[in-house]
């Protein structure tokens, strides 16, 4: 899919940079556990299976398009931006971008198949904010763990101040922002092209275009320590450069300002208050088509990346159970430091 949207340009795996032309190996039944992961060292995607406690039939993660796409997304992104997994100075948002890219890969892959978007249009009556399977991530897996709406859901309203620094948690903010932009552009283009195209065709094309915009922005982002604002700002610049309608950038600015990713010099309320004219392709709130926005400052900015519930990349002592202040100060650890601290409270992305 990514190769197609980039005009057939090769997407090398991360190890190709070291001269290794080996393939990515997929293990559909790597073992018994409720998981799937990407390993650069093994050059592999490993999918596991398990039987939920309340079921008799096993759940095979390799049978989930969402999970396969998510893990493959990690491998693709690791090839495009290897420093985001293995570089220094990566923030929680860098890890969040990785996880979000995985979930968005599943979303865009579903949106690249006409039968899937036709079904989604029929189900939602053209409103992508109605409950649908495109936004829900890994429904069977999530159900086995007690999440009937999917393990995660792209159609969410989460802001940075409402999530922890754990990479999957913080990823939902970026995923949700992109999903909102997809729904906005679709609403706009559906009206613009109503006389010439079926809504499903419009969604197919809009998703492909947004996917390419996202990938191009990711490629243009810093090689390490990338933040959500880095990617959003590059999306604005690239969108402008390819002469997208200005309203596209209004959607991007509004959605990521709402999510506390970027700060707007002027209030961006028209979209959220339902005052935006979806028929006006040149609509720019505040009168200026801003292409660079400041990132919202968060206490999490200097925090270590919490990949503790993900891969092992940033698993140093400072990310474990002890108080981060104690570790950073180089002091000795007491039993309370080690056993009393609740690690989930260490690096909160709260204001």
């Amino acid at each position: 899919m990514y190769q197609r949207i980039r005009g057939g340009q090769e997407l090398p795996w991360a190890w190709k940079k070291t001269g290794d032309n080996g393939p990515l190996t997929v293990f559909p039944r790597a073992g018994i556990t409720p998981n799937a992961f990407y390993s650069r060292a093994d050059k592999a995607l490993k999918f596991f299976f398990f039987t939920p406690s309340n079921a008799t039939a096993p759940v095979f993660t390799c049978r989930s398009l969402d999970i396969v796409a998510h893990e493959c997304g990690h491998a693709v992104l690791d090839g495009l931006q290897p420093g985001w997994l293995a570089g220094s100075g990566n923030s929680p948002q860098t890890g969040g971008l990785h996880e979000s890219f995985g979930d968005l890969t599943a979303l865009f892959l579903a949106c690249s198949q006409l039968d899937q978007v036709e079904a989604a249009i029929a189900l939602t009556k053209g409103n992508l904010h109605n409950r649908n399977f495109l936004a829900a991530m890994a429904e069977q897996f999530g159900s086995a763990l007690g999440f009937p709406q999917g393990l995660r859901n792209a159609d969410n309203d989460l802001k940075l101040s409402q999530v922890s620094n754990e990479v999957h948690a913080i990823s939902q903010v970026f995923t949700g922002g992109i999903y909102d932009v997809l729904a906005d552009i679709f609403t706009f283009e559906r009206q613009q092209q109503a006389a010439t195209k079926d809504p499903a065709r419009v969604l197919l094309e809009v998703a492909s275009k947004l996917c390419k915009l996202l990938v191009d922005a990711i490629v243009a982002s810093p090689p390490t320590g990338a933040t959500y604002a880095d990617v959003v700002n590059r999306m604005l610049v690239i969108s402008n450069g390819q002469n997208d309608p200005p309203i596209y950038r209004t959607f991007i600015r509004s959605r990521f300002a709402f999510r506390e990713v970027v700060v707007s010099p002027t209030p961006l309320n028209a979209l959220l208050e339902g005052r935006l004219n979806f028929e006006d392709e040149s609509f720019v709130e505040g009168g200026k088509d801003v292409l660079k926005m400041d990132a919202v400052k968060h206490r999490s900015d200097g925090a270590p990346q919490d990949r503790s519930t993900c891969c092992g990349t940033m698993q140093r002592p400072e990310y474990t159970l002890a108080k981060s202040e104690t570790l950073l100060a180089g002091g000795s650890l007491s039993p309370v430091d080690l056993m009393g601290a609740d690690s989930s409270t260490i690096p909160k992305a709260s204001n």
Partner: protein
Amino acid sequence: MQIRIRRRGGFAGLDETIADVDTAALSEDDARRAGEVVEKLRAEQRAPPVGADHVRYEIAIAGGAGPHTNLTVVDEARANDPAMSALIDLIALVGPARKR
């Protein structure tokens, strides 16, 4: 010696404590073996793998003769992984299925 084992991560972003035990509550033999396994885990600490969505086990050790430590074992689904073998031994000794 206090031993707490948390299982975290994976595709689902799990976070669960699977053992939290004071070895004083174990039999003398099991407590000694737990100490030996902890030393084995300490020796097996290695750089974490580059990748995404691995399940990792965080073992916090407090008290006892050795230094207070946080150990990490990442499940890379490899056969004959000595760190995972030691972890399984430790869970058998201090986990919920241990002998009472």
